[in-house]
């Protein structure tokens, strides 16, 4: 789950307008995420915590129900470049079990290797996405009906279909399915439940401290520690 999340980046064409205009603070979307054979979906909130001149702070809120319910927030400072994929500069994690937010070291920011990461295809430059375009479709999702562009990309046995809609800005992503015969964790789907606005970020980076052993338990082990 975590592997999937921190590689989720932007789809919009961001230059030509300032980042704060393209990514207004407090706006985002709620999603329902189904992982593999899990019956209970994970609730995911994805919203803009703030912007700087060349970077955007995106916060995730994840909530699982069941026997061991978890509420977790992660925030990432993402440097947005005019060309090429966006780059994660800093990451923070917080759960109610922690006294304060914790800083994710660089090796926790690199994401999962292998398969497809979202920043492989959600480029700032829309023309780079053209080769993956399937067509424009009207789709029905939990949030309503919307016209979205369907893209498909495959790599190493993983196929990702995703739909981007201008109506769902600033995130754009309205639906995604990932399938793989090789890696079980690459089987998941995501559907937008609603747009959200006026969200206050839970993590204030200036209050964050170093990652503790307790904090590590909530994060996927980076490749270097496996």
């Amino acid at each position, binding site marked *: 789950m975590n592997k999937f999340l921190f590689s989720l980046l932007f789809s919009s064409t961001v230059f030509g307008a300032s980042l704060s205009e393209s990514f207004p603070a407090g706006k985002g979307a709620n999603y329902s995420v189904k992982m593999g054979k899990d019956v209970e979906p994970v609730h995911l909130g994805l*919203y803009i915590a703030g912007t700087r001149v060349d970077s955007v702070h995106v916060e995730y809120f994840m909530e699982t129900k069941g026997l061991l319910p978890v509420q977790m927030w992660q925030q990432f400072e993402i440097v947005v470049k005019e060309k090429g994929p966006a780059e994660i500069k800093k990451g923070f994690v917080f759960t109610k079990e922690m006294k304060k937010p914790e800083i994710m070291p660089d090796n926790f920011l690199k994401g999962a290797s292998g398969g497809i990461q979202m920043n492989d295809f959600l480029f700032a430059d829309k023309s780079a996405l053209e080769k993956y375009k399937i067509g424009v479709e009207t789709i029905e999702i939990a949030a309503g009906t*919307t016209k979205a562009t369907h893209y498909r990309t495959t790599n190493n046995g993983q196929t990702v279909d995703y739909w981007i809609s201008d*109506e769902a800005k600033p995130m754009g992503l309205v639906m995604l399915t990932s399938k793989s015969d090789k890696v079980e964790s690459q089987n998941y789907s995501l559907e937008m439940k609603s*747009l959200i606005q*006026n969200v206050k970020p839970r993590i204030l980076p200036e209050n964050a401290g170093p990652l503790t052993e307790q904090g590590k338990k909530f994060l996927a082990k980076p490749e270097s520690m496996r």
Partner: protein
Amino acid sequence: MKFFLALALIAGHASASGLKTVDLKGETTETQSPTASEKSGLTPEQNKELMKKVEDIKAKQAKSAKILEEMEKDE
């Protein structure tokens, strides 16, 4: 005409794009969490009020602890 206006107001959850929109009104995500509301049986508004009361109690506890600490120092 009034009927249609009322309908439009009721459907106020829909955004300009037609997609459902939730306004968190400056709160963090947890206060609107469906799980928190479902677990307690409270509406999101009641949940928010309850959380505010909890925060107030915590603040008072912290204040009392500080006063006690100062009293102990004085002794």
